[in-house]
């Protein structure tokens, strides 16, 4: 047992880079997939719509912790080779991000009136041009507040990677708490760091929402 010192502060803050890395990885792979899911959900083909809806339902009905364990133990089994834990975890966070962002973005796309697509078609734009120049900018504006809100969920969700041994913020907190026997100070500090990361995003999301409300 030792007292809480500067070293412990430093170790908490350096552990932050894993929190950030997991968020960046989840977004980098999850966001394109989410766009695909959202487009699939509004597609003309019923089969595709159903398949995408089923994927999203499954992922949203399983705990994130379950997803993490499923891929952590399942990836080596499916592929028949050892994969680094980071890959398994990235796959889990990617699917989690894709499912939730996909639904959010679908909501944004559906909120843009059908007539706007038709107007684009009347102007002789191709389907992609309609999406790119008419629908996407409006949908983006509408779905920005919930997207930022989801980012907060994602940041909080990375704390679960601690359970698989990633030394991110939550895990560093456990380590420091065990070493110093100061759970109060340590966990208060950990919570404060998460709070400092998430609160600005929450407030930003709320401002965006208020602005959207005013402009309609």
């Amino acid at each position, binding site marked *: 047992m030792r007292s809480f010192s500067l070293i412990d502060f430093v170790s908490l803050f350096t552990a932050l880079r894993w929190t950030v890395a997991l968020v960046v990885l989840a977004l980098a792979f999850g966001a394109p997939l989410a766009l695909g899911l959202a487009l699939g959900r509004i597609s003309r083909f019923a089969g595709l719509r159903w398949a995408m809806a089923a994927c999203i339902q499954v992922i949203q009905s399983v705990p994130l912790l*379950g997803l993490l364990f499923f891929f952590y133990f399942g990836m080596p089994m499916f592929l028949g080779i050892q994969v680094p834990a980071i890959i398994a975890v990235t796959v889990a966070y990617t699917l989690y991000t894709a499912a939730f962002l996909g639904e959010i973005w679908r909501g944004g796309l559906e909120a843009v009136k059908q007539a706007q697509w038709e107007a684009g078609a009347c102007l002789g734009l191709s389907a992609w041009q309609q999406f790119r120049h008419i629908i996407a900018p409006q949908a983006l504006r509408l779905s920005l507040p919930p997207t930022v809100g989801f980012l907060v969920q994602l940041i909080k969700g990375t704390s679960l990677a601690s359970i698989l041994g990633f030394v991110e913020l939550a895990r560093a907190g456990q380590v420091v708490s065990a070493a110093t026997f100061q759970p*109060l100070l340590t*966990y208060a500090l950990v919570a404060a760091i998460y709070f400092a990361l998430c609160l600005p995003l929450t407030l930003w999301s709320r401002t965006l929402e208020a602005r959207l409300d005013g402009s309609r």
Partner: protein
Amino acid sequence: MNFLPLWRYQNQLIDGAIVTLELTVISAVCGLLIGIAGAVALNGRITPLRWLVRGYIELFRNTPSLIQIFIVFFVLPNFGLKLPAFEAAAVALSLYFGAYSVEIIRSGLDSIPRSQVEAGACLGLSGWQVFRHIILPPALRNAYPAVTSQFVLLLLGTSLASQVAADELFHVAGFIESRTYRSFEVYAVICAVYFAMAMSFKALFAIIGVAAFRWPRRR
């Protein structure tokens, strides 16, 4: 892949699922009560109380549930309040659910135009009658989808209680894993059980929604 060794543990799985459901329902009920109290306080005239509720909401919505469970479980004993794992998780999850419910319930109440309340008063209804017949039904209908989806997230979130060894479903998974060494199979089964529970609740809520509120509304 071999699921057979897990068959012997079906009773533990069922027990774990029951504890998960208990934890979810207890936290949801307590959380909703907190949410109603908080929404009333937010609409009230006592400014310090409003600030207090605001602070509570922001604090619990912007920190991970896992850390909140750790704090209740590991930190409260320092103040002489030692809770068993299940109770600690229930307290933490109630407060977490409560923070989200305040906003949901408040926005449900806020969605009723002021003029409707005044119209009710013009008809000679008492304050309670206005609340009961004019505000409550549409407020419930507006808040219903958000409350139910938050409930399903809570059900999935109870898995975090395993980290302080509350004997719910996910903790049972760890137990079975340690006995059988069938890590992947165990977690695949556990995921399937959560999926079945979540889908059942979604279906139930959809039926209740249609029956009670004719929801989703026809346009």
